[in-house]
């Protein structure tokens, strides 16, 4: 009986991890969201390009550390086939706008979208805030980063360069 309880507990604890890890090498769920300027943007528009997709929120302290690095990433790859898309899950658009305005020198290559109903982030089964996905040119998720670590920016660059090489 005890063994069954442990196995059940082990599985129930691992399942969410498995579910989201299961998105790796799967097609990225398509979506259409509005930007902070109100303009609609679809993931499909980036077909043929490598996409760095990040879900964040203004109330998330690691997101505050991460966003300047994402901004640098957008600048680093501005002349490439890479698109950087940040999706805010804030309920209020103005909170997302205020958050972005605190970043010095916001890159023109950083696309900021708003997901107030959290419908898109739930389809991506994010397990932490923030969570980032690196999607290849065929629209397949190749890398997932749950949360933000200080080693992430260097890993992002390596992963993106590996996908950019594979045309």
């Amino acid at each position, binding site marked *: 009986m*005890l*063994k069954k309880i442990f196995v059940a507990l*082990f599985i129930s604890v691992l399942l969410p991890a498995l579910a989201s890890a299961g998105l790796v090498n799967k097609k990225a769920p398509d979506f259409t969201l509005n930007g902070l300027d109100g303009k609609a943007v679809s993931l499909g528009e980036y077909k043929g390009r490598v996409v760095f997709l990040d879900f964040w929120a203004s109330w998330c*302290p690691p997101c505050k550390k991460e966003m300047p690095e994402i901004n640098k990433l957008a600048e680093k790859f501005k002349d490439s086939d890479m698109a950087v898309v940040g999706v805010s899950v804030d309920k209020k658009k103005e909170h997302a706008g205020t958050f972005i305005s605190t970043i010095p020198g916001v890159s023109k290559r950083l696309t900021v979208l708003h997901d107030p109903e959290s419908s898109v982030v739930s389809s991506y089964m994010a*397990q*932490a805030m923030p969570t980032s996905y690196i999607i290849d040119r065929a629209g397949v998720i190749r890398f997932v980063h749950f*949360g933000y*670590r200080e080693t992430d920016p260097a890993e992002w660059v390596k992963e993106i360069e590996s996908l950019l090489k594979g045309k």
Partner: protein
Amino acid sequence: MGAIKKLFALTAIFLALPAAALAEDYAAVQGYLHSFNNGISVYSGVFALNKDLSLDTTVSLKYAVDFISPDGGEGGDDDEGGGSVAAVSGASAAVNAGSDVRHDFMAGVSHNFNNIISVEAYYDYSTEKDYVSSTPTITLKKDLFEKNTTLTFGYSRNMDTISGRFMTGEEDRTTDNFFAGITQVLSPVTVAQIGYSHSRSEGLLSEGIRLVPTGAATDADCAPLTAPDPGIVAGGGCVNEAFPSERKRDAYLIGVNHYFTNGLGGLLERSAAKLTFRYYDDSWDVNSWMGEAEFYKYLDDNLIMRLNYRYYTQSKAFFVKDAYSAGDQFKSSSPQIEEKNTNLVGLKLIYLLANPVNAWKLAVNSLEGKYEYYTESTGVNAHIFMGGLRLSF
């Protein structure tokens, strides 16, 4: 072999998921005034610093100082309008209505080990004229179920040296504290916690700062004394308190925080209610109940109001009596272990600066102030004022 497999599975579960979250850099400066109706005033200052060295490591430093200012108090204790014993900080009055100063230093570090477990270690050192306390603390925190559950386990050891004015030398007291808690997110707007602590104290458990009248002696006989006098009057004396040399305590807590997104015609929008209940009992037969309610409300985007109310009731220690004889093994003049009810009610305002004010390398982010009123069924009451600011860097 089966037991080893089970242990491995349990360990794997415990280690499987992330732990800890990032703190934010801040400095806090606060000032307090506790003004008692027995003429005692305690002025306190708190200076705290919290800094992320990395995403995984946070250090905190704190210095607190209490200036105790008795107004004509000398000896005895506060209930009869004299002295400043244990007014706020445990600091005692110097002889002849002097004042006392208590310094408290705290340093701590917390580290998240590879998102597996978070460890916090703190050291607290406080000193005043007749009391030195040294307390290391260690806490382990583990998040489970997508951080919906946080388990906390901790241990601290108080190592105190007491040299109260009615003592001829100094004596030690040691307290081991164990605590555990679970915090559980119940919904996107509700979080609850339960906690338990157990502590064991040994050594001198009184403070050597109060005298007990025995026999025919009265509080008035003892009040002006600077040393015990067992024969101050015929058939009576003023002697040191005598407490048991051991005390075991258990405390149980349950709390819930709930956020309101709307309700009462918009009155509850952007507000939160916090309810806490605590039950305590110990080996001296002191048992107590505490209930506390706090209500927070954003009055606008930059102003937060907090209303709070706390009710507390406790029974007396088994050896507390109305009158003592010289032959009693235990004797007490301490208001701390008498039967009492207390009430605390207060209002706090926090102003969030829309544009932080820069001061050197710091930015003032918020200002706060509070007023609280504390009353005891023993007749003691206090007005509590607090002002402070929070800075980022």
